[in-house]
């Protein structure tokens, strides 16, 4: 049981970090960013290139992923989403744009980074073994701690910085925020850049553990959507809760249901359908509570 809990917490931390970026973009712009998974993959490949190909320290790779994805996110918001949102009031316009960006990024990743699975050597060797009750490699513990630290840093940014307050205001009521002098365009761009940066950071963190490949984008996006549906779309605490709940459900399911075949996600999806029938807004409700 201890091992199952440890696996669930580790999975939950990384899932929560993935979901945070997605929910931030949704809360600010009402955009379902289907390209979030591809941004995660891109971030992973950037860290791989910097660390494994160029031989630079892991932290440099992680920073490169964060910066490149932030710039990419800002450019996508300014040149793609902003004009579309301005010209079209229909939600499906931004959804189609996001799907198009996902396909485009898939093609770019294939061309630039190739089709192979890539990985970065372990950043910490050794395995923590508590009397065979919990076995956890040190690098996973480190990545889990870093993920939790990043989540804490993100919450602090949203709570205590001027930028965070502006973005929260935008998420609560876009019109009111604008009337109060919040520069909507500027903070939308910063929010999108921050969301993309989070995706890139998770990709960079996990490339040391899970590796990265071209096909991971789509499934990552689906899992991220699952998490924000559980927690409540556009709610930071909801994304974190959704991430940890999904991680725990996956860990428990894979162990308890192993004898029945690969039905863990079948059970998760079925449970989610029942849950959403009773609480369609997710656990934490609408943006920013």
């Amino acid at each position, binding site marked *: 049981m201890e*091992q*199952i809990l440890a*696996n669930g917490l*580790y*999975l939950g931390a990384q899932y929560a970090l993935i979901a945070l970026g997605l929910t931030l973009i949704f809360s600010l712009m009402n955009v379902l960013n289907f390209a979030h998974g591809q941004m995660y993959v891109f971030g992973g490949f950037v860290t791989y290139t910097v660390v*494994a190909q160029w031989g630079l320290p892991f932290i440099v790779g992680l920073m490169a992923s964060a910066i490149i994805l932030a710039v990419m996110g800002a450019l996508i918001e300014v040149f793609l989403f902003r004009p579309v949102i301005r010209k079209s009031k229909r939600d499906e316009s931004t959804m189609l744009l996001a799907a198009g960006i996902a396909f485009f990024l*898939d093609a770019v990743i*294939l061309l630039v980074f*190739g*089709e*192979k*699975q*890539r*990985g*970065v*050597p*372990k950043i910490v060797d050794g*395995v923590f*073994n508590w009397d*065979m009750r919990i*076995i956890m*490699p040190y690098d996973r513990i480190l990545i889990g701690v870093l993920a939790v630290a990043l989540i804490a840093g993100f919450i602090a940014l949203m709570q205590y910085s001027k930028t965070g307050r502006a973005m929260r205001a935008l998420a609560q009521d876009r019109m009111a925020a604008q009337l109060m002098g919040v520069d909507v365009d500027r903070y939308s761009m910063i929010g999108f850049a921050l969301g993309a940066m989070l995706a890139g950071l998770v990709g960079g963190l*996990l490339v040391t*553990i*899970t*590796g990265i*490949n*071209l*096909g*991971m984008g*789509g*499934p*990552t996006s689906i899992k991220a959507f699952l998490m924000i549906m559980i927690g409540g779309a556009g709610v930071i605490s909801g994304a974190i809760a959704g991430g940890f709940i999904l991680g725990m459900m*996956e*860990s428990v399911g*894979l*162990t308890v249901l*192993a*004898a*029945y*075949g*690969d039905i863990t*996600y079948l059970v998760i999806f079925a449970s989610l359908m029942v849950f959403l029938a009773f609480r369609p807004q997710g656990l934490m409700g609408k943006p920013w509570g």
Partner: protein
Amino acid sequence: MLRRSFLRTTALAAVASIAMLGAAHAENPILKIGFVGVTSGPAAAWGTSNQRSMETRAAWINETGGYDIGGTKYDIEIVSFDDQKDPKRAIAGMEQMAQAGIHYVVGPNVDDGAAAVRPVAEQNDIMYFPYAFPKELYTAPASNAILGMVANYQSGPAIYKYLMENNGVKKVAFVAGNESDPLSQRDSGAAAARELGLEVVSDSVTYQMDTTDFTPVLLPVIQTAPDLLVLSGVSPANAPQLIRSARELGYTGLISTETAQNAAVLAEGAGELANGFISVGGASTPDLASDMMKEFVTRYTAMFGEYNDESNTKVYALEYILATMAANPAAIEDIDAFKATMDTFEAPNPFMVGDAKLKYVGSSSFGQKRQVSVPLVVNVYKDGAFETLFVAQVD
């Protein structure tokens, strides 16, 4: 004046050279060979290694004057179609090949795609070389598909038997991805293991193909304490993570698979934890590779920046098609002539040292020769490279 004359002469020489080059190229008729397989998405590595192997070899042939079939030199053109691992797209791809008048196609890479294209291939006189294992594709009345590699139900028993005799393996566990290819490979592998007298301690654990953390997946498998953990039909993307998770959970037994893997991917994803991992490979280990194989690897690397060890197996399909046509030039347009030639065809294997032969096999598995004879080279990974564990022949 002198300078102007020099420039004019140089320009004339350049134009003449280009014209002559064009003329030299125009002399050779084009022979189109198709490829329908997956070159995007999670399994892109499988099809990309196929396509790049074919393109490397075709470029090499064209550069050296073309391929001699019945006294005529042909330039080879590879026509590729990405089926995205989708049977519907595989059918569309095969129809496109038929419309282009192509009679020989390499691929598809997976079971459902290979099964889906069968009617199209048979109606349009196309011989195709799938990397898929369902026996009904190769047994009569089917006759247009030729298995492009060694099937897991052929390599699996050979590996298990070797490990029983040499490593004292008694208990085996299987884990597979939740897709048709890995699941069917797991089932046939477990059946073969039982037939050999091995105790199968786990064969029900599966995983989603997009799993990123295999620790919870492998936990119940490792608890059964197998001597051998078989990663059935594992893709090169998942293999390093599975190996790493198994080792990190304290598993010290053997790990094997019947699919081809890539040493660089294993090195990056699992490092020294992958040492001892057993997989099926081709002929590029230093002790088996011929000079031609070594040049193929060099050319592939120069063309695409990096070699893929999966191409050790995938280099063969195009060579078989061309060599069989050379043995019977009527086969260029007539696939019945191709089929007739297959029964007696034999040529030196240019990619291996020694007296290995290119020939069609499969009589014992399929009742007819519908499989290329590639050496069953079982490799063991060690410190970033594969070493040959043993070599066997199918059929």
